[in-house]
């Protein structure tokens, strides 16, 4: 379980994150969606959780299985992003971040190599690890990227780039995967395809996903749980059906009176 | 041993303004075009040589100063000559940009470095061809100092230094005015921040880039002209050390920031001049130590930047 405890972050006068306490992964493979109007502090929250920002107050904690069934708390508030990856915490960005000059396969390979702790290895060849190659093949299949496996990333269509970005994250064998608008900029007809692929993969690997999303139809169809942020605070938390039933919530999200 | 400290500080201000004039052009070009122009120092040297010719010709037409009035006339002629010399750099800069730099904007940064380095080498020999291999001194420094300025306040201080500071302030004021108050200036700034958006609203980035490069050359040349009419001479390799110092200045100030360039230049100028007489051995190192310290403490420089960083 990944837990935010009383997180607070201000930029000048702006309280981007204001006393936020949340738990993710209370059930295995949970899909949590974070919604909220622009400027609600969604991305700041993800940045605090993944270590791109350090909070002014509060802490980030993971609950880890210590092997004999009980769990231990591990505080990771001050941990560098790359160290959090070891703790199972992985993210994607709103703007696609892939290695543009590498092929799809090379992108996935470097992620998997990193996950296996092989990146300091100078004695082998990068493509000489059979286990890694098998995992890469699985990822290619899982994210339906086999056809473009040898294409260079910056030549791919946007949807495939998004999928590659997410596939790399899965290659890191995350426990918690934080996705910042995975469907942003993806053509409408491809959105479903992208999110469906993510859902399948997270289901298969029991990954807890925390997704920032603007498309309420997607949220309604896929969310196990909903977190609504507004002005840096947790405004609502609960079942996605709140989107249908909570009038105040609808006003906040749409910014209009109905 | 510190009784001369105010004088050293004053010398530092003068030296700082010289540095500012050179660095201003570099920072504008870098801020807008994103090109680190290694040939900037040669444009500065070019200005110094052109000033040798033009100022030399013009002062040949007027009498050597004998009293305050003739000295003022003399000074005005020298300044006009320096401006004319810098103006020669406008077409030079524009030509270089249009003919050489423009075709490679979309190439990797390192090729722009290689290109401007090639231009540096070629410009050096162009100057060698036109003005010969030896240093040239136009010899108007004495005449400029005949203008009474500091004596009026009872201080014995070269008028030339005062002129440099005044001219430097005017250059700074003009640049701030240009970028803040004129339409062209605002367009240039918009282009610096977002090229695509500027193109989208109908700005010809080609024109802007040429203009900016020509401006950069102009101020480099003007800096060179101001040095040329001072106690120093124009010589072939004179651009190398100011080029490196300009890097330091614009990095300390924040890349692309004019105010930063001014503050950075004054900081480098004053620190160097105050430290030098007491610790000569540090003279070379001071600007770089200053830069390392500033970058380690404030990685984006004192005044941030025009362009975007990741």
């Amino acid at each position: 379980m990944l837990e935010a405890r009383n997180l607070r972050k201000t930029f000048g006068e702006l309280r981007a994150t204001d006393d936020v306490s949340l738990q993710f992964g209370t059930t295995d493979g949970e899909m949590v969606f974070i919604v909220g109007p622009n400027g609600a502090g969604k991305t700041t929250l993800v940045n605090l959780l993944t270590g791109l920002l350090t909070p002014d107050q509060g802490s980030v904690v993971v609950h880890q299985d210590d092997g004999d069934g009980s769990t231990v708390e591990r505080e990771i508030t001050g941990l560098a992003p790359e160290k959090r990856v070891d703790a199972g915490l992985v993210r994607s960005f709103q703007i696609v971040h892939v290695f543009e000059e590498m092929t799809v396969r090379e992108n996935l390979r470097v992620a998997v190599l990193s996950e296996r702790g092989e990146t300091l290895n100078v004695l082998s060849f990068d493509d000489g690890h059979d286990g890694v190659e098998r995992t890469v093949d699985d990822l290619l299949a899982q994210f339906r990227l086999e056809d473009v496996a040898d294409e260079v990333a910056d030549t791919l269509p946007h949807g495939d780039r998004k999928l590659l970005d997410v596939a790399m994250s899965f290659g890191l064998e995350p426990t918690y995967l934080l996705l910042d608008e995975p469907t942003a900029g993806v053509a409408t007809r491809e959105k479903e395809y992208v999110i469906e692929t993510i859902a399948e993969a997270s289901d298969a690997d029991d990954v807890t996903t925390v997704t920032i999303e603007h498309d309420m139809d997607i949220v309604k169809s896929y969310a196990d749980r909903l977190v609504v942020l507004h002005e840096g605070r947790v405004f609502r938390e609960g079942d996605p059906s709140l989107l249908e039933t909570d009038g105040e919530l609808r006003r906040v999200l749409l910014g209009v009176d109905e | 041993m510190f009784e001369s400290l105010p004088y050293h500080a004053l010398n530092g201000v003068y030296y700082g303004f010289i540095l500012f004039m050179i660095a201003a052009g570099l920072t504008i070009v870098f801020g807008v075009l994103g090109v680190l122009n290694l040939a900037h120092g040669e444009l500065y040297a070019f200005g110094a040589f052109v000033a040798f010719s033009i100022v030399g010709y013009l002062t040949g037409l007027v009498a050597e100063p004998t009293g305050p009035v003739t000295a003022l006339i003399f000074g005005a002629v020298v300044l006009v000559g320096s401006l004319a010399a810098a103006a020669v750099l406008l077409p030079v800069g524009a030509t270089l940009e249009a003919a050489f730099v423009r075709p490679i904007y979309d190439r990797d940064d390192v090729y722009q470095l290689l290109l401007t380095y090639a231009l540096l080498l070629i410009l050096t020999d162009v100057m060698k061809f036109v003005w010969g291999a030896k240093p040239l001194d136009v010899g108007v420094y004495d005449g400029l100092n005949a203008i009474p300025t500091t004596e009026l306040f009872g201080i014995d201080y070269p008028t030339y230094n005062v002129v440099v500071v005044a001219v430097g302030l005017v250059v700074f004021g003009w640049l701030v005015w240009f970028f803040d108050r004129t339409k062209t200036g605002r367009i240039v700034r918009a282009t610096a921040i977002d090229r695509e958006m500027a193109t989208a609203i109908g700005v010809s980035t080609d024109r802007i880039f040429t203009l900016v490069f020509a401006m950069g050359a102009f101020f480099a040349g003007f800096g060179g002209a101001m040095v040329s009419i001072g106690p120093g001479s124009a010589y072939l390799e004179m651009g190398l050390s100011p080029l490196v110092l300009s890097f330091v200045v614009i990095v300390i100030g924040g890349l692309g920031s004019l105010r930063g360039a001014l503050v950075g230049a004054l900081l480098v100028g004053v620190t160097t001049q105050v430290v030098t007489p007491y610790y000569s051995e540090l003279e070379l190192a001071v600007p770089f130590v200053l830069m390392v310290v500033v970058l380690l403490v404030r990685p984006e420089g004192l005044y941030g930047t025009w362009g975007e960083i990741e």
Partner: protein
Amino acid sequence: MSRARLSAENLPTSVRVVLVVLGLGVLLAVPDLARVTPLSFATIHKGLLFGLAAVGLNLLLRHTELVSFGHVAFFGTGAYGAAVLATYYEVSSGLVLLAGAVLAATAVALVVGYLVAGHLDIYFALLTLAFNQVLFAFVVQSSFFNSTDGLSVRVGVDRPSLLGLDQLLVSAGLDPVQAYNYVLYYLTVAILVVVVLVTWKLVNSPFGRALDAIGQDRTRARFIGIPVERYVWIAFTISGIYGGIAGGLFALLQLHVRPEPVLFAFVSGEILFMAILGGVGTLVGPIVGGVILVYLLDLARFYVTYYHALTGIVLLAVVYFLPEGILGSLPALGAAIERRRRDPGLVRNDVETVVTSVRRSVRRAVTTVRILVFGVN
């Protein structure tokens, strides 16, 4: 690595083998070539050494995409490391001098690398430049390093010994100076081959791929768990070590080390340009670039009055006509020549293209100037 993809690495294996063998053959034959042609043996040797430093710089440039403007710092540290051992500790073994060079360069690279690893782009470039100049200023001021006069790399007037191999040649009847230079040259070639092989292994290893990742997207690299600063630091240090080896060998070649040629920041720029000139996207391009640029910078003045301009024009030609550097553009060039051999008509098109582009440049320039001067279009 689209850069590499565009260049040498997509040549067929057979062609690559031929090129490697040819390259090695030329390297081994240099002393003989220099004897029968006006080529300067010493200058080519020096060029190879700067090329070696450029290979190191290219490790950063090509993979982590960091531009170092201060690389001669390590070359110079290496050279001075050897000189200090010879001058103050009377070390006469060439290998020990070389080891000293590498140690000194490693130490400096570790410190500088630690401080610059977190910086990017121009800030990285100018920080490395700053450290370079601080080091230069320090050496120039230091009486230990004998200020601008520099240090000798001899014990008394004797050249260092090179494993006794030079003595062997002398007893075989060779002139001692020649024997020393031959042995040193072949030692250089051997080291060069080893370094190139090591680099090839390095850049094709998982670590090399991690460096690529850092270069292409630092944020993403961090978020796949790569400790970016630490890896940049390691790469920087390795790259500095190359510089140190080259500098140490240079000290053995020149036998006297002065600050301006081995520590001044502009020489750092030259090393950078060697890498670009030869081909950033290639493994051995920087060596080719090193030999060519050193040759131009050192010897052009013996043949022409306007030698700066000559060097400048060569560089301009590379920028415009060999966009991937000399070695990097070979495949494209080869393909183009092949096409033209089949269809000579293309050559006329080329000429037209060049003429048009020159004409266009001139017209642009003239228009620009006209607008500037007369304010009208």
